């Protein structure tokens, strides 16, 4: 948040920029044009910006032009190109008539209903229920009415000849017959010409795949859907909701079951836990966990997820694992060269001496990691030069970088003031002149010593006071003292 923002928020006048800060240079457009009257006012109000969108509202009609002479209307003849006959009609046209195409002629679109020859019919289109004459009649009707099935079905009025049975043709029947014939024609023509279909032809073929039964059922479904009563609709909605709810609860049930199973399956204890059921056993267990945790932290090994519980690191195993660790230590020591030896050796013997030790594989892994680091470091830094680089080894380190001056420990404020005054007496400045490692160490030690001094002084004063009280109370009754 800059000061400019805060001033803006609080409506304070802007700060006069002091000598150091150049004023924020905002580019001001200076137009050359002079603005008069309303435009000038608008410009002043709006500033640099004009509105982004202007709304034009034509609330009024255009003003009628009284001066113009009216154009005449002419009663003209015209022909409709869509018609096959030469019917001539008349209509009014404004101005001079142009004999352009009749504007509505372009709407006369025709559907390509295929025509089939007798040979083609005999080849593949024959059907028991349909005579060729009826099929032709159907096709004519389709052509006539542009494949509008409802109209075709309504107009369908086939007069069968003497020997043909009269049958009622439903819409589905008609459609079926028509599409079957179309497909058959496509097939025949393809086979005859040897030219395979284009993808568009294939699409068309697939689209004309009319399944009468399915269509009938579909229409029945739709009918039923449409004719539901409101009560039925409500019932259906309710059922759907309930179904969804049941699904979710079953899913949740499955999840819970999984979790429970997982919980039950996890850590299998190798040994019995009977020994830990008494109060002493519990405290022993707690101690084991703490110690092994500390061990693990020291070695910098991450926690194993479920290591068969703390029981795996059972106390009875100590003598064996202790011996094992010793052997590992010796083996490792043989490998490591240089200064690291002494440091690591002592550390590892210390750790081996602890009552509960981690599982052997984890131990050796940690030691390997340590010695690996040690080996790498040794390679690059000859032992004597550690001081040149400021390298030191510590047991427990928090990762990160810091300034040494920031890590001088602080005590409680009351104590701190006393310590500071004593330091001043001794002639030590409160801020270290050269916070190197050695200096910091000694400074810390000094602080501790001063702390101790203060404590002893307190104690001495207390005793002094008590003695005084005792001497003044003497030879009075002893019950007053204490």
């Amino acid at each position, binding site marked *: 948040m800059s000061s400019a923002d805060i001033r803006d928020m609080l409506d304070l006048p802007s700060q006069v920029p002091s000598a150091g800060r150049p004023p924020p240079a905002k580019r001001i457009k200076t137009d050359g044009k002079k603005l008069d009257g309303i435009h000038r006012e608008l410009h002043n109000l709006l500033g640099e910006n004009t509105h982004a969108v202007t709304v034009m509202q034509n609330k009024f009609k255009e003003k009628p032009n009284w001066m113009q002479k009216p154009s005449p209307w002419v009663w003209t003849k015209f022909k409709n190109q869509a018609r096959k006959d030469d019917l001539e009609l008349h209509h009014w046209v404004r101005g001079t008539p142009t004999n352009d195409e009749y504007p509505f002629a372009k709407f006369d679109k025709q559907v390509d209903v295929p025509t089939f020859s007798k040979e083609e019919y005999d080849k593949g289109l024959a059907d028991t229920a349909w005579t060729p004459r009826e099929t032709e009649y159907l096709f004519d009707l389709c052509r006539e009415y542009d494949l509008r099935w409802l109209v075709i079905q309504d107009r369908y009025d086939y007069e069968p000849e003497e020997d043909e049975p009269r049958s009622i043709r439903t819409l589905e029947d008609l459609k079926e017959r028509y599409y079957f014939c179309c497909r058959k024609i496509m097939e025949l023509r393809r086979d005859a010409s040897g030219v395979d279909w284009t993808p568009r032809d294939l699409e068309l073929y697939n689209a004309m795949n009319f399944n009468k039964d399915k269509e009938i059922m579909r229409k029945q479904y739709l009918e039923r859907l449409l004719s539901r009563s409101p009560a039925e609709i409500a019932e259906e909605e309710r059922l759907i909701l309930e179904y969804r709810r049941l699904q979710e609860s079953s899913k949740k049930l499955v999840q819970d079951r999984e979790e429970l199973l997982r919980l039950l399956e996890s850590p299998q204890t190798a040994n019995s836990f009977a020994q830990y059921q008494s109060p002493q056993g519990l405290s022993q267990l707690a101690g084991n966990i703490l110690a092994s945790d500390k061990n693990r932290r020291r070695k910098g090994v991450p926690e194993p997820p479920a290591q068969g519980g703390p029981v795996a690191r059972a106390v009875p195993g100590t003598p064996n694992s202790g011996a094992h660790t010793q052997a590992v230590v010796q083996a490792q020591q043989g490998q490591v060269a240089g200064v690291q030896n002494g440091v690591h050796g002592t550390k590892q013997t210390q750790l081996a001496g602890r009552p509960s030790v981690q599982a052997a594989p984890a131990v050796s892994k940690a030691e390997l990691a340590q010695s690996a680091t040690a080996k790498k470091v040794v390679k690059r830094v000859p032992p004597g030069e550690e001081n*040149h680089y*400021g390298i030191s*080894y510590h047991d427990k380190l928090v990762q990160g*970088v810091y*300034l*040494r001056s920031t890590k001088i420990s602080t005590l409680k404020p009351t104590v701190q003031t006393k310590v500071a005054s004593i330091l001043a007496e001794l002639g030590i400045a409160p801020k270290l002149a*050269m916070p190197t490692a050695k200096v910091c160490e000694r400074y810390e030690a000094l602080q501790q010593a001063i702390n101790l001094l203060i404590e002893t002084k307190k104690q001495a004063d207390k005793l002094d006071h008590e003695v005084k009280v005792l001497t003044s109370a003497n030879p009075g009754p002893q019950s007053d003292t204490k």
Partner: protein
Amino acid sequence: MSSGSKRLKNLQICRPFVYGNMAVPLKEDRSPDIPPDHTHSWTVFLKGVNGDDLSSFVKRVVFKLHETYPNSSRSIEEPPFEVTETGWGEFEISIRVYFVPEASEKNVVMYHHLKLHPYGPEAEQQKSDGATVTSMQYDEFVFSEPTESLFEILTKKSGAVLPAQKSTMVPFSTQSENEELDRLSDAQSKVQENIRRLTERIHVLEQEKAALQSL
């Protein structure tokens, strides 16, 4: 090895450095761009001891000056890590040090009070001389569990060695370190002496108290 990002456990490596400022009063022959109320020209810096190059592990240093300076946050990406300016007032400058990406470390910040006017016992003398005023602080970067690449960078050249003798150019040396150590040891022994005396006194007092109580 490409695994330069692994951290070396139980290892701590440190690098000493110096930060602070120098200031010199402006003479009459100064350039006219400087505003008339500025009295001193000063430089705030961060550098290594012995003139060491810190840029091997320091990526950039950001000096945050007083807000009244234009671009008050000065970012210096290459050595020498310093900012030179003119002014009239003393204020606190925050120095934020960013380390090279191989280190995978976050930045550290330190504060330095800019000193323009002479201070200390020779203040009057220095004022009349028009001498350069310096205020420097020694400190050390301590890297705990550094990454391998950082370790390599820091061990390429020996950087933690301090010059043996004090000199005007390099006010921090082993000599000054030893002086401080000696001071601290002296103080420590005095404190120990006092503690010893007090414990003796406590013994005596306890005996007295026991004697009085048993009466």
